[in-house]
């Protein structure tokens, strides 16, 4: 095919009886990319990965790996490999035997197998004497690394991950996220990762695809998805966000109690059209009405939440709308709960979402 994509999905449909899990999905993943598919449960991301690794069959459409169509190839003949959510390590085998499993299937001699397994232990920063350990003797993080080593031993064209970190505690997850990103750099393999955690996706990925109801809502690099979401769903899925319903009147966006500085850059939204003006909480500032913000809104400070390095404030504005403000701890506001405040932000830090 005339595409430089490593993996290409063409109008892939998956139906379970009358329920359609995937509605004609197109996707291109490039060689060496760390690509993450994010979505809430039921969005079709698990169905997607089952199709990609060959554990399920597509109802319609095609999956191409380079110029070879693979959607009818059974899992054991596909040159791809997956790290399972449960890790799916073989409990009756030692760490070494687990890692060597794909090599043994290829009838590689025991000597070469062991050498490769030890190399992989080094790569995953596991001590070499783990080779003889039982799986049940390894901690959660170590099992994670063994599962990765086993998948890498297979030398897959693409390595798939099905939420492998979701069962781990927060700290370990953070460590492994970084390790995984590092491993991606060192191996240069193509990683396709599935998760419901946006944070995980943001830390590791080159590109992110947001899934909803069996469709891709947006596919873009992490920054773009964060700052320029295409819909309310993406904006809200990507963390705390303030969305103001606005209407284009006289070349300006107004509504939701926002006061607009008339000198602000004019909108090119046609007169009378509606949209959602998005501003992330870290771009909203407390002011006194004379700081020259392009958008201002007044309200009453409700509550203050400490989020570690940041402080989050909830401000109730006219009509009961809650606006969220985030500040670094060192810039902590002095206002007390219940006091009247004025909030401001600049047009450059906003993004207009126009949903059809």
């Amino acid at each position, binding site marked *: 095919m005339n595409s430089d994509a490593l993996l290409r999905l063409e109008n892939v449909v998956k139906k379970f009886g009358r329920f359609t899990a995937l509605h004609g999905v197109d996707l291109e993943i490039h060689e060496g990319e760390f690509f993450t598919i994010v979505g809430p449960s039921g969005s079709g991301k698990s169905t997607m990965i089952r199709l990609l690794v060959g554990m399920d069959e597509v109802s319609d459409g095609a999956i191409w790996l380079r110029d070879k169509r693979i959607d009818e190839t059974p899992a054991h003949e596909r040159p791809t490999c997956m790290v399972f959510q449960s890790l*799916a390590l073989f409990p009756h085998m030692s760490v070494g035997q687990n890692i060597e*499993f794909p090599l043994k299937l290829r009838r590689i001699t025991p000597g070469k197998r062991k050498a490769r397994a030890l190399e992989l232990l080094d790569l995953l920063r596991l001590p070499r004497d783990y080779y003889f350990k039982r799986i049940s003797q390894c901690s959660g993080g170590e099992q994670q690394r063994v599962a990765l080593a086993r998948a890498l031993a297979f030398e897959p064209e693409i390595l798939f991950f099905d939420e492998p970190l979701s069962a781990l505690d927060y700290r370990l997850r953070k460590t492994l996220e970084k390790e995984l990103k590092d491993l991606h750099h060192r191996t240069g393999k193509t990683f396709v990762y599935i998760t419901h955690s946006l944070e995980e996706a943001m830390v590791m990925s080159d590109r992110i695809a947001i899934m909803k109801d069996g469709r891709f809502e947006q596919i873009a690099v992490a920054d773009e998805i964060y700052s320029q979401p295409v819909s309310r769903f993406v904006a809200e899925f990507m963390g705390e966000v303030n969305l103001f319903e606005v209407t284009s009147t006289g070349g300006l966006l107004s509504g939701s109690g926002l006061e607009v500085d008339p000198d602000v850059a004019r909108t090119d939204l046609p007169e009378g059209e509606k949209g959602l003006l998005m501003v992330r909480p870290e771009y909203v500032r407390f002011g006194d009405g004379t700081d020259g913000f392009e958008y201002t809104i007044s309200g009453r400070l409700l509550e203050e939440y400490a989020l570690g390095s940041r402080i989050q404030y909830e401000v109730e504005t006219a009509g009961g709308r809650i606006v969220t403000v985030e500040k670094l701890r060192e810039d902590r506001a002095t206002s007390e709960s219940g006091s009247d405040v004025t909030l401001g932000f600049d047009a450059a830090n906003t993004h207009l979402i126009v949903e059809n």
Partner: protein
Amino acid sequence: MQKLNRRLGFLSSLPILAVFLVAFFAPLMVVALFSVMPPKVFNLTNTPDFSAYSVFFEQGYYRSLLWSLGMALGSTAILLIVCWPLAYGMAKVFRGFTLVLTVAVVMSLFVSENIRLFGWVLTLMKGGLIEGHIRAWTGIGFDSPLYGIPIIVFGLVYVYLPFMLFPLAQGISMVPDDARQAAADLGATRWQILTQIDIPLAAPGIIVGCLLSFVLAAGAVAEAKILGGQAVITIADDIETAFTFGQDWPLGSALSVILIFIIGSLSLLGVSRVDLDRIMGRKR
């Protein structure tokens, strides 16, 4: 109070220990003692000798034992192969239908073994259900498959099927689905998944199933008597005869001790390799 708690386990097992002592251990001891008595005595006050054991070799009783063990081995092997697909289906595929199968198989146990075996005799004998009908319709008759070794093995397979099927299904259900999927994903064919994932992980169920059917089949009498028409004599049959018609309790006891010894060692060997708690689902 703490002292009582510690002894609670022992105290609550006392009733069953008493039953075991009286109903199980005591008769076993009597049998063991009788086995070293001189021939044809009916009390234990004689000078011990081992003549009964030499009779085992001299008078060809070892042949009965070999037949019993051989047929038990054969039927166990056949059961393993026959039950595997069915047990796999029950554990992984059938869902609701598993219950139907379980009830159906258990129901067959409600009918006495002898009656079921006689049912097979009526079905298979010359002029019986099958041959009789075929001869009546086509005029061509054939010999009954009854009264041979294959039909005895068939009988053993038929009677002891539940004892292989259920432990096997239990064992297979312990094989995690994702381990099988991961193996396939890593390039394993169906055969490789069977030999490297399914069988090792279902091993406890396989061992228990094999032990149960082997032990029961090795001590079986009815199949050889009813279906086999005593084409071969099983060791359990010999034991019965020695105690009844033979009126030679020491001989019967010696044969029993030999059988118990062989089966007991096999069972201990098997059980020592299985984590029974795991099968009962008490720990993972």
